C-alpha cells in the first residue's frame, strides 16, 4: 500500500469513520511503520489490548445476596416505623378530639376522662401488638405485602386480659 493510501486511512481513524475491516487493516499497516506518530497509535492499540492494568475485585454472589437482604430489611423497618408513628398520631388525635368534643358538650367528670384515656391507651397497646406480630412475620421472611393482618382482627379483649 502506498504512503498516500496509508495517510488517508490514518485520517479516517482520527475522523472515526473507519469500518471494522479498515481498522483491522490499519492496525496491520501500523505495525510495519517506524514513524514516531505511528508509534504513538501503536502504543494506544497496545494499551487497549493489554488493558490499563487496574485490577478489580468482583462482587461475590454471597456479598450481593447479603446486600440485597440488608437493603430489604432496612426498607421494611423504615416503612414499619413510619406506619406505627402515623398510627400513634391518628390514635392520639382521635382521642384528643373525642375528649375535647365531650368537654364541649358537658363538663367531664374525672372518671370519664380517666376512662377515655384508658380507651386510648388500650387502642395504642392493641396497635403496638398488631405491629409487633407483623414485624415478627417480616423477620420470618413473609412477603412484605402480607405480614399485617386485617385491623378488624385486632383482639382488644386479649389486651384487656393481659392488663
Amino acid at each position, binding site marked *: 500500500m502506498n504512503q498516500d493510501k496509508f495517510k488517508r486511512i490514518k485520517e479516517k481513524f482520527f475522523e472515526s469513520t473507519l469500518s471494522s475491516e479498515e481498522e483491522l487493516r490499519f492496525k496491520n499497516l501500523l505495525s510495519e511503520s517506524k514513524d514516531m506518530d505511528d508509534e*504513538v*497509535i501503536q502504543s494506544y492499540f497496545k494499551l*487497549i489490548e493489554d488493558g*490499563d492494568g487496574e485490577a478489580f*475485585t*468482583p462482587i461475590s454472589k454471597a456479598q*450481593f*445476596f447479603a446486600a440485597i437482604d440488608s437493603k430489604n430489611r432496612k426498607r421494611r423497618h423504615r416503612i414499619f416505623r413510619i406506619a406505627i408513628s402515623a398510627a400513634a398520631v391518628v390514635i392520639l388525635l382521635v382521642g384528643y378530639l373525642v375528649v375535647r368534643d365531650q368537654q364541649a358538650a358537658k363538663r367531664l367528670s374525672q372518671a370519664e376522662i380517666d376512662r377515655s384515656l384508658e380507651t386510648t391507651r388500650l387502642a395504642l397497646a392493641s396497635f403496638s401488638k398488631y405491629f409487633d406480630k407483623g414485624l415478627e412475620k417480616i423477620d420470618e421472611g413473609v412477603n412484605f405485602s402480607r405480614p399485617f393482618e386485617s385491623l378488624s382482627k385486632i383482639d382488644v379483649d386479649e389486651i384487656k386480659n393481659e392488663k
Partner: protein
Amino acid sequence: MDKEDFWNHINPLQERIFRFALSILKNKEDAQDALHDVVVKLWDSKHRLMSEKNINAFALKTTKNYCIDLLRKRGEVLTLAASHQTPATGSSYEQQDLIALIKNRSHQLPVQQRMVLELKDFQGYSYEEISKILDIPIATLRVVLSRARKFVLKSVTHEPG
C-alpha cells in the same frame, strides 16, 4: 426475576461496569464502590431490566447516570472542552512511556469524551450501542470520538522535543 436469575444476568457484566465507571471517575476505589451500588440499583430496577432487549446497554446506562450524579454531587464541573494541562514531554519515548503519556492524556479528557473512548475503543461497542447507552446521536458520537482520539494521540505526537 429472583435473585439467582438476576445474578446470572449481571455477574458477567461486572468487569464492564467497573471499567466504564473507572473511565468516568478516574479512581479505582470510587469505581469499585460504583460497581457495588450500580448492581444494587439494577436489582431495584429488575422489572425494567427484564423488559430491556439489551441488558448490557441498560447496565452501562445506569452506570453512567450513577457516576455523573456522583461527580455532580461532588461539585465537579463536567466540561465539554479538554483541559489544557500538558504532560511531560521528550523527543524519544519508550513504548511504556508512551502508554503512560496516553493514559495521562486520556484522564485529561472531558467526561463525555472519556466515556465514548472507553466504550468504543476499549470495550468495543458499536456506535449504535453507544448511542443508546449515552443518548447521543451517532453523528455526534463520531465527532466526540474523533476529538478524543486527536487530543490523546496527536497531542503526544506533536509535542516539541
